């Protein structure tokens, strides 16, 4: 049986569902519901795959990606490779509401966020630092490099491009603990 209103979200992030549902029930818009639901996961660092202190990159930095879309107007706000700002989905909504762009990325997206009043803070935690240091100790495995030397399946970088490209036989590393 179908019924409206409806909130649905990936993974068993129950607090996020509840936050979105409460937003709807207290008269908020569907945009408010999605923003509040996703922001709850950013705050709670849902299973380490959302928000600050997770998924450090090859330099140990945590960066965030987020988007929000209004199905009535087809407007979209998105941020990619966002640094130093915890509320990524809030910045995505700011892109939608304070620019006529769709997506801002990287350091410039962070400066835009600061100009719009978002607080700049360190997204690194002891946990993400520990993940990073263990990775370095394990010869930087796994990584997402290919056709470079030294052999990325054995060694850390820095890497240089190989003269010849090998056929794409790369084993993919996304899993329950590391995914988008």
């Amino acid at each position, binding site marked *: 049986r179908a019924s409206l209103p409806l*909130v649905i979200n990936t993974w068993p992030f129950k607090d996020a569902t509840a936050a979105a*549902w409460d937003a709807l029930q207290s008269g908020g818009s569907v945009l408010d519901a999605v923003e509040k639901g996703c922001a709850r996961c950013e705050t709670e660092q849902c299973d380490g795959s959302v928000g600050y202190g997770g998924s450090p990159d090859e330099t140990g930095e945590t960066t965030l990606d987020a988007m929000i879309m209004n199905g009535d107007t087809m407007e979209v706000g998105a941020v990619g490779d966002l640094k130093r700002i915890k509320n990524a989905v809030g910045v995505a909504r700011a892109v939608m509401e304070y620019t006529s762009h769709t997506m801002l990325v990287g350091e410039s997206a962070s400066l835009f966020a600061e100009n719009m009043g978002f607080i700049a803070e360190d997204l690194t935690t002891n946990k993400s630092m520990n993940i990073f240091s263990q*990775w370095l100790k394990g010869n930087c495995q796994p*990584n*997402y490099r290919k056709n470079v030397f030294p052999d990325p399946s054995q060694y850390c970088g820095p890497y240089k491009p190989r003269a010849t490209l090998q056929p794409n036989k790369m084993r993919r590393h996304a899993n329950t603990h590391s995914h*988008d």
Partner: protein
Amino acid sequence: TIGMLAIDQDGHVAAGTSTNGLTHKVPGRVGDSPIVGAGAYADSEAGAAAATGDGDVMMRFLPSYLAVELMRAGADPSTACKTAISRIKRHYSEFFGAIICANTTGHYGAACNKVPGLSQFRFMVANTESDAPLLKSVDC
């Protein structure tokens, strides 16, 4: 990653995502989550969808956009989700990924690709059927 869809009783639809992406990614790498039509897509005339998984692969097939367009053409949400997953599977049989779909009547569905470590995909639903959010799951 969280992907979320919301539809109110007047049929307004929104979608959103938030993630910290792949662990040990190359600096500068952006996944599928913020890419419209890949991480999520919403159209109040058809419904919404949101995806999660190996974003480097999934974004190439715009699974959320495909699922919404299939629902616009009359597919139920479960079928739309399954079709979006099988489109990727045709090229990357071992990809790690899942998708949730909802149409404007409040029907919803989900689908996932069965790989080691993902045989069942769990997701959350809140509607007037119950006071508290419900944990749902689909077999991959």
